[in-house]
């Protein structure tokens, strides 16, 4: 298998629309969670989310924009950034040797919501002519492929909250196997519609608004955590055959060295310690690394009552005596849960942590939970020396657990 390099990062997030701004906000402990107004605000119980400040017309001409759901807009902008940073990953490449894998949980949710509103709310049959093209789940990946002429594999992965981690892991395997030389891989999600929020509300998994500070409502690993906060955005990586990246003198931002995939096959929402632990072990085996090589774990850390103690126990099971000494943080406390895009965004956070030697904190962790007893880098970023390898966890409804391990070059 060929080693895989990361040569570009693109980010559209609740904490800023490029990777550098995003990471600086994480280190500063800034939150992107705030009150939002959607259709029928008076019917919303949950009024908080983490939206992206995004000026779509500055990125796309109007006729193009009318073909792109918000999820595809995010994906395209993030992919463009990642390719720019790679400084010519596609130059001189046979277009059939490059592709795009994107993870998304809910696809073109805004288009679906708008279409149903037209039909059922306005009782009109004037559904927009491009609704199908905008709502289809593979639209973000397809547009990336078209924009950059990528004629190799173009796939969309939908495994709920691990979608983009799966997309990146599967893309890395294609590069490693020599089927392709360059992949754009990541995730995109734009679920902040009235319909989607009501559906999540009904599942009783959303965080209650913090009465003193709405921005502090997501409290992973804290005793007073009450659920997840929905966010939106996209993160894309350029993955490239390491030898090729070196030959063209690209900046190697990281090497992607491990990917683990394991399924709970037990309960649709309740996470399993064993399932999560198996995914972490498989990723470590794939990387050929021992647990003490891992200097930081970006946790799935949703802030739900169910996830956080289970993830803690899974980390304890895998890391054993090293568990207490391995820093773990949930950046979802700041950027919230981007569902299908979460894993990609969090891998970017982990890669930049390794590059900068700074661990982003778990914010809003004031009241410890005895069942969550790891080092969560509470509330303040931490500078560390010699951080070599990092892990990023993504666990999903449906039970698809995916874990990635990246190394500094």
């Amino acid at each position: 298998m060929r080693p895989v390099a990361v040569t570009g990062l693109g980010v559209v997030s609740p904490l800023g629309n490029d990777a550098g701004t995003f990471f600086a906000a994480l280190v500063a402990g800034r939150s992107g969670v705030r009150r939002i107004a959607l259709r029928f605000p008076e019917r919303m119980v949950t009024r908080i989310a983490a939206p992206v400040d995004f000026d779509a017309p500055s990125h796309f001409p109007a006729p193009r924009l009318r073909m792109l759901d918000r999820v595809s807009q995010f994906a395209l902008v993030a992919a463009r950034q990642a390719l720019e940073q790679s400084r010519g990953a596609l130059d001189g490449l046979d277009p059939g040797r490059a592709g795009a894998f994107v993870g998304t949980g809910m696809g073109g949710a805004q288009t679906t919501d708008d279409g149903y509103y037209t039909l059922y709310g306005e009782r009109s049959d004037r559904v927009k002519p491009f609704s199908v093209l905008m709502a289809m789940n593979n639209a973000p990946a397809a547009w990336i492929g078209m924009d950059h002429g990528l004629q190799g594999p173009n796939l969309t992965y939908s495994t709920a909250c691990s979608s983009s981690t799966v997309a990146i892991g599967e893309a890395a395997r294609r590069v490693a196997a020599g089927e392709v030389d360059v992949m754009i891989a990541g995730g995109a999600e734009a679920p902040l519609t009235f319909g989607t929020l009501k559906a999540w509300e009904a599942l009783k998994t959303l965080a209650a608004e913090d009465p003193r500070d709405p921005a502090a409502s997501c409290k992973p690993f804290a005793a007073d955590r009450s659920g997840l906060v929905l966010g939106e955005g996209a993160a894309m990586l350029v993955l490239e055959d390491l030898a090729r990246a070196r030959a063209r003198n690209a900046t190697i931002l990281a090497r992607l060295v491990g990917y683990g995939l394991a399924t709970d096959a037990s309960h649709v929402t309740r996470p399993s310690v064993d399932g999560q632990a198996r995914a972490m072990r498989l990723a470590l085996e794939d990387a050929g690394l021992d647990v003490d090589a891992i200097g930081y774990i970006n946790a799935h850390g949703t802030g739900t009552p169910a996830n956080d103690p289970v993830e803690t126990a899974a980390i304890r099971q895998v890391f054993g005596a090293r568990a207490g000494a391995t820093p773990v943080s949930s950046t979802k406390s700041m950027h919230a849960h981007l569902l299908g895009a979460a894993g990609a965004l969090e891998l970017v956070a982990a890669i930049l942590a390794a590059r900068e030697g700074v661990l982003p904190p778990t914010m809003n962790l004031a009241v410890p939970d005895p069942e969550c007893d790891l080092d969560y880098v509470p509330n303040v970023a931490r500078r560390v020396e010699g951080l070599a390898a990092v892990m990023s966890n993504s666990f999903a409804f449906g039970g698809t657990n995916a874990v990635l391990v990246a190394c500094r070059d």
Partner: protein
Amino acid sequence: MNTFERLRALLARDFDLAPEALQPEATLENLEIDSLRMIEILFCVEDEFKIVVPAEHAELKERLHTLGDLAAYIDGLVQALPKAPA
């Protein structure tokens, strides 16, 4: 404004087409209006002229080659609308 002028204003405003290129004899092909874009244009035309485009797309493709053809087609549909009582 006559039908052609209204159509031209709509295309310039919503479809990023240069007004000077929007002449009656300009072909849809030269304006890079493909079948997909045409579906959207007809959707907007329905709103603008308060008409319903009944024809199947294949039939339209036979009939409409230039902007002038499209304006004449729209005109026909507008004429066929029931007259508002005076």
